[in-house]
Structure formats: structure tokens, C-alpha cells
């Protein structure tokens, strides 16, 4: 076992380097905030400010919202709230909390690799693979909860590895606590963490370690107490989950919910297709996801050289299950192949639901890289070339990510709402408008307005009106009023007819008209 203190220092260095890689340009790309980021941020800001959520609940476990009764995941919000205690509310500050979670995952990966793989250089490769994974990079720069299960998964593996080596009760407790805490990180983790618990129990049971099993279960159970208490307070939560994610439907005429359909042959076949497609190397190593919110479509979810390392790693691990230390190899392989399960249940292949695959791929691929580096000079050169290609491919990805991708993806992030609302808010600083009309046709405009009002420190809440343009509800312009609507050529004449004398078109990043800020200046 390498010296623990020096390993910890190196892991800290890896974390810092990852932050340095992930943090720049957080308000530049992704080009805009998604509505989910806005809502997480508003909840976090409310908690940081008053200790209560937007519904006025004191330190709730889940954050219910109108239209999302399931409740937002707590871990992301409380971490973000801690950041907002120290930093002002901004696009950067809310995304920075996720950056730190992502970077912590990479640092922990270094620790795991250093403790399980023989060479320090291979541990650095593991960290490099994880840090340069495009899907992980992209998700770590979004203020969402999807990244949070990743560090929990790596922590679980570290704790298991330590426990298998030392048999210390403390480590068994940590396994249970980490997996229990992981449940609060993201909804998909509520499937994966118990699965990991089950797999760990099987490993310990197989080794005849009944005491370890009991300790782990007790620790996990302790972490479930808040969830059970919440269930008593919110007895509808599970039925809300089932209906929000279309898992169960009383009306079976259309085949029922997603879980019900699993019972049919057709449903089962389609899920096997989803599982197979999840591991589609074309998507994983060449093109990435179809959604431009989470992929540039120019590079795979993982860098292409990782495919070679991963293949070698899987073959090595299936031939020598002890290659990652006793018991850990089978757990890693189990985790790797079951990771798309949340996506399979939801019949959705997108990697955001199963980001836990990233550290598992990183550790197995690093094992593969290490194996290649051990062999003859030809394979060693190949491994070195592939490793060198990773930063190169990442550089191409980053150039696109901070360049043309911003324009391509702008629409996927809801358009340039920020620019339109900031125009109104900046004007309001000079002279407060008498009324602000915001068209409900702009998706989640209320949340965006609240967020940017708080960021700019301008409160126009009592003068704001939300209108439905589709219902022919264009208000007559009053003096010193301002209105924000989607850019629509037919609307322009109607606005002029209603007395809105000045119309500023807010363009999207690709130059297309996105929104209109219409005003009638005060005389």
C-alpha cells in the first residue's frame, strides 16, 4: 500500500487541477442556464438565505415544486446553498458547486486507482481518463444533481477496498453510510445505491463475513431514517415518482406505465434493446448523445482511445478478477454492466441517468492501460500514444465546446432569455419601469425572472405581470412599461398597434431573433 499521506496530497492536487480545468468559462459555455439549473439555484438560494425552501419548509429533505411533486434531490441543493453562503448568486457560483463535486470525483478516482493499481503513473492515467471524459466534463459544468452520485460511487469502492483489506468495522460503517447518503444525491441513485449494497453484501457473504454484512446494513439503515421520516410526512412521494416518470399507470389500455410494460415480452425486448444501445460504441466513443444539452455530437461520451484501454481492462479483469484487489474486480464489473439500469427502466439511453459509469470505466480502462504498459515495447508505445492522444482529442473537443457548440446548442438551452431579462433589469437600475409584462410563452419565464432579478439585485416582483399572448392578451402600452415576448414577426405589428413604440430584438448566439423587449418610454 502506498504512503497514505502522500497519496492524499496527490489526490488533492488532482482535485485542484481538475477544478482548474473545469471551472473557467462557466457562464460562457454551456451558453445559458437550463430551467432545471435555475430551479435548483432558487431553492439553494432560499435555503442559504433563510434555511427554508421556496414553499417555506425548514431544511426539507426533498424540495417540492409546483409541477414537480417528487421533489428535487437534496444533496445538490444543500451543497449549492453552502456555496451561496460564501459567494454571491450568479451563473458561475451555482455551477461551481457541481464543478467541485465533479473534481472531487476525479480526486477520489486517483485515490482509488492509487490504492488498487500498482503504479502511480497508472493512477494518474485513471484520473486523466475521468477528468477528460467529455460527458463528465459537460455534466460537471451544469448546476444539476446528476453528477453527485459519481463521487459517492468512487467513495463506495474505496471504502469496500479498504474494508476488504483491513476488516475494520469503521470501514464497513463507511460503506453503509456512503451508499445510504448516495440515495440523496440523485433519483437514479435510489436504484443504484441499493444495488451496490446488495452486490457488496454478496461479496462479504461469500467471504463468510456475516459481521461485516450486519454492520454495513445497520449503517445503511441509519441513513434511511430521514427518508422514512420524510415518507411519513409526504406519503404520496412514491406514487408521485411513479406517475411523474410514467412508471405506473392505472389505465392499462395504452400498455400501462414503464414498469408495467416490463412484464410483457415486447416491453422486455425493448429494454434489452435500450441496454444494448446504452453500450453502443458509436455513441460512447464517437458521437455522444443526441441532446445538445449534454453532448457536442462531435465526440463520444468518452474519448476514443479509452475504448482500447477499456477493452483490454475488461478482458484483464474477466481473466484475473483479483487484478483490482480481492473482491473489488467483480464489484467493478458488476457496477459497469448494471450502470445503465436507471436508463433501461426509463427506456432512455442518455448517459446523464447513468453517469456512475464514468468512474467505473475510468478504473477499468486504467487497468487496461497499465496492462498494456507492462507488456512488450510495441504495446507500451501504443499505450503511450493512446494516452497522449487523449489530451489532444480533448483539446479539439474543448475548442468546439467553447466555440461553435455554443451557437449550436443555444436553442437547446431555451434561447437567450438571460440577455432579454438582463436588458430589462439593467434599464430598471436607471429608471424602474411602471410595469413589467412577461409572456408565458417563454418557457419557465417566472423562474428565470426570479433568478436574474436576484442576481442583479433588482426586485420588480410587485410590478411584474405574466401574460398569455396566445390568448390574444397583448396589453395596451402604458408609460414606462416594458414587455418581453418571444421573437415573432407577426407579433411585432400587434405590439406596435398596442402602443409599444420601441422594440428591441434580442438575438440568440447564432444571430437568429430570440426575444423582443418592447417598451413605451416615459414621456
Amino acid at each position: 500500500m502506498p504512503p497514505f499521506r502522500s497519496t492524499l496530497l496527490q489526490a488533492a492536487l488532482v482535485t485542484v487541477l481538475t477544478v482548474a480545468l473545469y471551472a473557467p468559462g462557466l457562464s460562457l459555455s454551456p451558453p445559458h442556464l437550463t430551467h432545471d439549473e435555475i430551479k435548483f439555484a432558487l431553492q439553494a438560494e432560499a435555503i442559504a438565505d433563510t434555511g427554508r425552501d421556496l414553499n417555506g419548509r425548514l431544511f426539507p429533505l426533498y424540495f417540492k415544486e409546483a409541477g414537480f411533486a417528487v421533489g428535487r434531490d437534496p444533496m445538490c441543493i444543500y451543497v449549492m446553498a453552502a456555496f451561496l453562503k460564501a459567494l454571491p448568486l450568479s451563473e458561475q457560483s451555482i455551477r461551481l458547486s457541481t464543478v467541485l463535486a465533479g473534481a472531487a470525483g476525479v480526486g477520489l478516482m486517483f485515490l482509488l486507482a492509487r490504492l488498487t493499481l500498482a503504479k502511480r503513473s497508472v493512477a494518474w492515467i485513471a484520473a486523466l481518463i475521468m477528468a477528460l471524459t467529455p460527458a463528465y466534463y459537460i455534466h460537471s459544468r451544469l448546476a444539476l444533481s446528476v453528477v453527485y452520485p459519481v463521487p459517492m460511487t468512487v467513495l463506495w469502492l474505496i471504502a469496500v477496498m479498504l474494508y476488504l483489506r483491513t476488516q475494520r468495522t469503521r470501514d464497513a460503517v463507511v460503506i453503509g453510510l456512503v451508499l445510504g447518503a448516495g440515495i440523496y444525491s440523485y433519483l437514479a441513485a435510489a436504484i443504484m445505491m441499493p444495488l451496490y449494497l446488495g452486490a457488496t453484501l454478496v461479496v462479504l457473504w461469500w467471504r463468510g463475513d456475516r459481521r461485516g454484512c450486519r454492520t454495513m446494513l445497520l449503517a445503511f439503515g441509519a441513513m434511511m431514517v430521514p427518508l422514512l421520516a420524510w415518507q411519513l410526512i409526504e406519503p404520496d412521494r412514491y406514487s408521485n415518482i411513479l406517475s411523474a416518470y410514467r412508471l405506473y399507470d392505472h389505465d392499462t389500455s395504452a400498455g400501462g406505465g414503464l414498469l408495467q410494460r416490463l412484464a410483457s415480452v415486447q416491453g422486455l425486448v425493448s429494454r434489452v434493446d435500450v441496454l444494448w444501445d446504452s453500450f453502443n460504441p458509436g455513441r460512447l466513443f464517437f458521437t455522444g448523445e443526441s441532446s445538445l444539452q449534454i453532448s457536442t455530437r462531435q465526440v463520444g461520451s468518452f474519448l476514443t482511445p479509452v475504448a482500447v484501454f477499456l477493452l483490454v481492462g475488461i478482458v484483464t479483469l474477466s481473466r484475473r478478477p483479483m487484478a483490482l484487489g480481492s473482491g473489488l474486480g467483480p464489484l467493478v464489473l458488476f457496477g459497469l454492466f448494471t450502470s445503465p439500469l436507471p436508463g433501461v427502466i426509463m427506456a432512455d439511453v442518455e448517459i446523464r441517468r447513468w453517469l456512475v459509469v464514468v468512474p467505473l470505466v475510468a478504473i477499468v480502462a486504467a487497468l487496461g492501460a497499465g496492462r498494456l504498459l507492462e507488456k512488450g515495447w510495441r504495446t507500451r508505445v501504443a499505450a503511450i500514444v493512446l494516452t497522449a492522444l487523449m489530451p489532444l482529442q480533448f483539446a479539439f473537443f474543448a475548442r468546439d465546446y467553447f466555440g461553435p457548440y455554443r451557437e449550436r446548442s443555444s436553442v437547446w438551452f431555451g434561447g437567450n432569455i438571460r440577455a432579454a431579462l438582463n436588458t430589462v433589469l439593467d434599464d430598471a437600475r436607471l429608471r424602474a419601469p411602471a410595469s413589467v409584462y412577461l409572456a408565458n410563452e417563454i418557457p419557465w419565464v417566472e423562474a428565470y425572472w426570479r433568478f436574474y432579478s436576484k442576481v442583479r439585485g433588482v426586485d420588480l416582483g410587485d410590478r411584474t405581470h405574466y401574460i398569455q399572448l396566445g390568448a390574444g392578451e397583448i396589453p395596451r402600452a402604458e408609460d414606462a412599461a416594458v414587455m418581453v415576448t418571444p421573437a415573432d414577426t407577426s407579433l411585432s405589428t400587434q405590439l406596435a398597434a398596442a402602443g409599444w413604440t420601441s422594440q428591441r430584438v434580442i438575438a440568440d448566439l447564432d444571430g437568429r431573433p430570440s426575444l423582443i423587449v418592447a417598451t413605451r418610454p416615459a414621456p
Partner: protein
Amino acid sequence: MTAAPGSFTAANGWTIVAASCLALLIAGVVMTPRVRPADGALRAAILEESVQSTLFVHGDGETWYQPLAVYPSRWLIRAGVPQELAIRLPSMVAGLLTIVLAYVVAVQLSGDVMLGALTTLLLVAMPGFRGASQAAGGELWTVAFVLAWFVAILSWIEHPRTWVPFVGGAALAASIYGEPEGVWSVPIFFALGVILLRAERRARSAIWRSAIGIAVVAAPAVGWVITHREAYADTFGRWAIHAAHIRSPGDGVVAFTQWAVMARRVEEYWQYFNPTFLFGREMLGLPLLALVPLGVWAVGKRWSQTGRLLVVGGSLLAPVPAVLLDAPRQAALASLLLPLAAVSGAAAIPVIAAMRRGRSAVMTAMVVLLLLTLTLAAK
């Protein structure tokens, strides 16, 4: 070939091969053949003598057929064989040839006659194989020719006779005349053969002899393409790696290096191994799911390097010609997977038999497999 331990002799093995062939023939005659979308045009090309028929046969529009898909049926019709039977009979013959060759390959690789016999039974149980042997088309000819190449390689490794690589190479090149993907099968499986032969003494001369065999048999096709340049876009064009090659072959190669094109081909390749396709009614059938994964493991773990390369490597290479054609996923384009999966499935049976109560488990599994296959086939 060696006999299996116990009383299972080579004669028993050949008896089962004969029974499998008979079963295939009966199934071919009795069962209604599955109609595929392209069947109509092919039937028309077979029946319409006036279409341009030199070596390759011009069908409708851009379609040209490989000679083995058309001429044998035409000759049978001329010889007085009823039309329906004449259209399907060549595929049946190719199917019978495939059964025999799959048996020989399995026995050569495992040294176990019983395993060879099981291979033929599993092959006949596959809905994809039965379907292909009942339908018009030349895909099973391509499969048989590639298997003949494997037999030649294995025979040469066992007894290095000089004429064997030549015949093997000639057989492999004959796959050009079976189906469009056969054109790509030649370089791909020749490369696999070279890897196998390289480990042996006097490999260089064997490789040369097989290359000459390929050249001799491929020469008419090459000559035909040169003398029928007007057909280039629709013949070689259909077999080439990217549509851009229609402008020039160089453009096709360059286009293939594009990131998006490579990504699409990788996806196409991956989808050939999708379990719902592989174990579906167009290919191996669901019952084989119980045997093939275990068999692949057994081949990987217990068989020689040659066996692993030929069965596992061959299976992994089987869809590559189809992917290079950039055609939508079709069972007909990856038919070589069928006999290789049968060998893998058969390789699982000794593993199960070696377990405690394994023999009874094997017997039960075979009965269940038979019943399931018959039930699914009847649907």
C-alpha cells in the same frame, strides 16, 4: 477426425449430419418460406431471361445480382424442375453444404464427433438458417464458401498438402459470386486465414497458394467489372465502402475516414450483436440464448488459439462485410454467424455435461430446445 469418448463414432456423427440434412430438406419442402422484401425482384430476374445476363445479372433499376443467386435456378427451370422448387432448391443445396462443412469444422476444431453432430442439430434448429435455406438468394453459398476456406486452413494445419491452400483460396473467392457482401468476405477472411497460417511452418508458400487460388477464381469477376464499366456504379458501387466512391473509388475511401461515417458504421456493427436481433426469429432463435453465451465462454477458455480465432474471431468478423456495404441490418447479410454460433452452442454442451447431473441436464435441455424450436417455428 477422432471419435468421441464412449461409443459415439464417426459413423454416428455422419448419420446425424444426414438426419440434419434430411430435416432441412423436409422443412424446406413442407414449410412455407418466409417472403423477404427483395424476393419479388430476384424472382423476376430469375424468371425473366431477357434481362441483361452476362456474368452478373441486371435486375430492376440499380440492382445487379450475383450469378449464384440466379443461374442455378434458371438452369433447374430449364431442366424441368417446378418453378417454385427451382427457385428455392439452390439455397437448400447451399444449406446442405453448410451443414456438412459446419460439422467438419466443428470436428476439426474440437476433435469431438459428438460436438460436430450437435453443431448440425443446432444449425438446423436455427430459424435464420432454415429461412435462408428456403429463400431465393445466394447468401448461403457465401457462407458455405467461407466455411470451405476454414476447412482448408484446418486441413492444411493438420496435413500440409500443397494443393489444399489453393483449393481453399479458390473456394473463398467463389463467395464473390454468391452475394454482394461476399466481395468483402474475401479480403476479410483471407486475412483471418493468414493469421492462422502464419503460426505454421511453410506458411509463406501456403499463403501464396491460397492467394493464387483467390486470383484465379476472382479473375472473371474482375474482368467483367472492367469490361462492363457502365455497371460499375450499381455493382462495385453497391459493394464499395461509401457512396462517394461513385465519383471515384478514392473519394469512397476518403469519405469512409470521416468521423460521422465511422461512427455510423460502428453503430451498424454493434447492432448485429444486439441480443434481440441475434436470438430473434430471423437469426439464432431464442432457445440458443441458453447455449451460445456459455459456448463462447467455453471456446475462449478451453479451445486452442486456432479454435478461438476461427469461432470467436470469425463471429466477430461475420458482420463486417455487411457493415462495409452500409446496408440496413439484415439477417441475410450476416449469415456466417449462424454456423459459427452453432459451433459455439455445441461447445457449451460438454461443459454442461461435465457438471453434476450434467448429462440429464443436457438431455433435458436438448428436448426443451427441440420443443421450443418447433413451437416457435409453428407460430
